[in-house]
């Protein structure tokens, strides 16, 4: 029995090298200058100060705004869907949830590319509009296309935890509420909504955190001028070559997210 605790040894080494050290390296680059080859080790806050410039702060706020918008839409669309699914028979629910999950399994790039097809200026939607006599709308490279891509991608992440919460709920509670004279709206607000809160919070956190740090969807559907935090980090590492600044932004992003997660855990101490 005691032998078993040694089983963790490989992962201790592994996780240290591949999880802890990379983070330390990011921190190292963030606090130094001197480029890719860390030959010059002068500690400085220059990179963080650079991020405080108005242009970059606006990138941050743009990402947060988009994240909130995506999360909001996912919540508005996702909650009803999760609720309606939970009203069906168990077997049907399984099938419906499977239907919701399948797109998540399909490679992100392939799914986003599929949207490219649909939204292109010479794509199907515009073609249909043309047939109806409406002039084509330029949908690509806009806030609309990016938000659409994000919502479509993250909606399952909102639906599944909410549905799990709703499913676990004891139906007799609702029966009891009706017996005690509550109407449908009251029953919904006081019981169903309250009990599904853990799932809702879970969904909100997941969708929000993923949407503020995404970079593929904005790049493909938004074009070069769509610069969110993820794109900013990517450009620093891939084309600009300022690894120090890029690391500083990454570190900030990671810290902000970790703090948000901690706060979320405080509001809802339930462990998933």
């Amino acid at each position, binding site marked *: 029995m005691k032998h078993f605790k040694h089983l963790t040894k490989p992962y201790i080494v592994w996780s240290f090298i591949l999880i802890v050290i990379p983070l330390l390296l990011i921190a190292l680059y963030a606090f130094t200058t001197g*480029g*890719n080859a860390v030959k010059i080790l002068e500690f400085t806050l220059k990179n963080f100060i650079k991020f405080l410039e108005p*242009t*970059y702060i*606006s*990138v941050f706020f743009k990402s947060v705004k988009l994240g909130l918008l995506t999360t909001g839409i996912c919540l508005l669309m996702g909650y009803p869907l999760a609720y309606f699914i939970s009203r069906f028979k168990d077997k049907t629910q399984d099938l419906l949830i499977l239907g919701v999950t399948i797109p998540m399994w399909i490679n992100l790039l392939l799914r986003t590319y599929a949207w490219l097809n649909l939204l*292109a*200026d*010479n794509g199907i939607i515009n073609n249909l509009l043309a047939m109806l006599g409406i002039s084509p709308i*330029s949908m690509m*490279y806009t806030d609309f296309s990016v938000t659409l891509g994000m919502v479509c991608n993250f909606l399952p992440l909102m639906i599944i935890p909410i549905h799990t919460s709703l499913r676990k709920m004891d139906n007799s509670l609702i029966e009891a509420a009706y017996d005690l004279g509550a109407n449908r709206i009251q029953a919904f607000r006081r019981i169903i909504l309250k009990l599904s809160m853990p799932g809702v919070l879970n969904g909100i956190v997941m969708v929000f955190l993923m949407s503020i740090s995404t970079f593929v969807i904005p790049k493909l559907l938004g*074009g*070069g*001028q769509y*610069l969110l935090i993820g794109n*900013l980090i990517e*450009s*620093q*590492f*891939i*084309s*600009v*070559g*300022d690894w120090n600044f890029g690391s500083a932004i990454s570190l900030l992003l990671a810290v902000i997210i970790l703090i948000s997660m901690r706060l979320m855990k405080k509001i809802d101490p339930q462990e998933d």
Partner: protein
Amino acid sequence: MKKRFIILMAVVMSMLLTACAGGNSSGESQTGTGRTGGATLKIYNAGEYIDMNLISQFEEEYNCKIIYDTFESNEVMYTKISSGENYDIMIPSDYMIERLIKEDLLMPIDWSLITNKDNLLPEVMDLEFDPGNTYSVPYFWGTVGILYDTTVVDEADLADGWNLLMNEKYAGDLYMYDSERDSFMVALKALGYSMNTDNKDEIQEAFDWLVKQKSVMSPIYAGDDIIDNMISGNKSIAVVYSGDAAYIMSENENLEYFTPEEGTNVWYDAMVITNTCQNIDLAHKFMDFMLREDVALANTKAVGYTSPVASAFEKMKNTTFAGISAYVPDTSNPNNEIFRYQEQEIKELFADLWTKVKAQ
């Protein structure tokens, strides 16, 4: 439960086997029917910049394997090799070649091994960025200009030159290149400055011009996606390289190409060999191969860019790209310039400012 697992494994295994049957066992081979004939050549080129059949052809003729990677811009290429990635042959632009030479990253070319060197046009040789072509072998050349839809754009507006791109009439209807040097070139030339300036005031003015353009015109910053989009006529104006213009114009008759009077960038892309090249002999063979008349012809025909090989240039000028002005670079305008090397400080300034333009 066990049955479920077995089924899952079976399906996954069959997927693996199918992929195996079609693919290569090494998993690292990139293109063509290339065989494992010993030698490997790693090539780093711009995207959409070669006829991919030529890669397979070379692999077959010389019994080798080519690993072919592409970059979106010279800056991306430079950052990648700075991060430790090694290639044998790269195909950057003039100013980037100047930088690579200055930083001692290239190996001199042994011209005695380039048997096809007499095929080259004299005007692409011995230029300021690499005197005597010590380090580079010409690949393609051309200009940067404006591609426009003749059915939408007013002839009279063309007199504005680069400021056509600031004409509110066409707001929301244009593409700019997502490349710091090219975009700043447009702004600097529109303001009458040199594209190689290191005067910080001029650069700041150019920055302001670009920021204004972004708010007034809402341009889309694109890369190679310009090509299919302009062919489909999705927008009316685009800043493009002459080669892309030639290709696009051969597919869409409504489009025309012009280079403004204020002057534009004349560029030369060339093949270079890196210091880390493993197989110098094979590298020279590849460069020689690209200068072969039939190969150069196939390449320029497929991609649309102007060939540095005389016979291919003449043939394309008179047949496939006849009447397409973009194919014949107009180097006569004295205001035209070649990009030159930028000091690190200026390079970083440009990169920073360009990020800020996009972030507006």
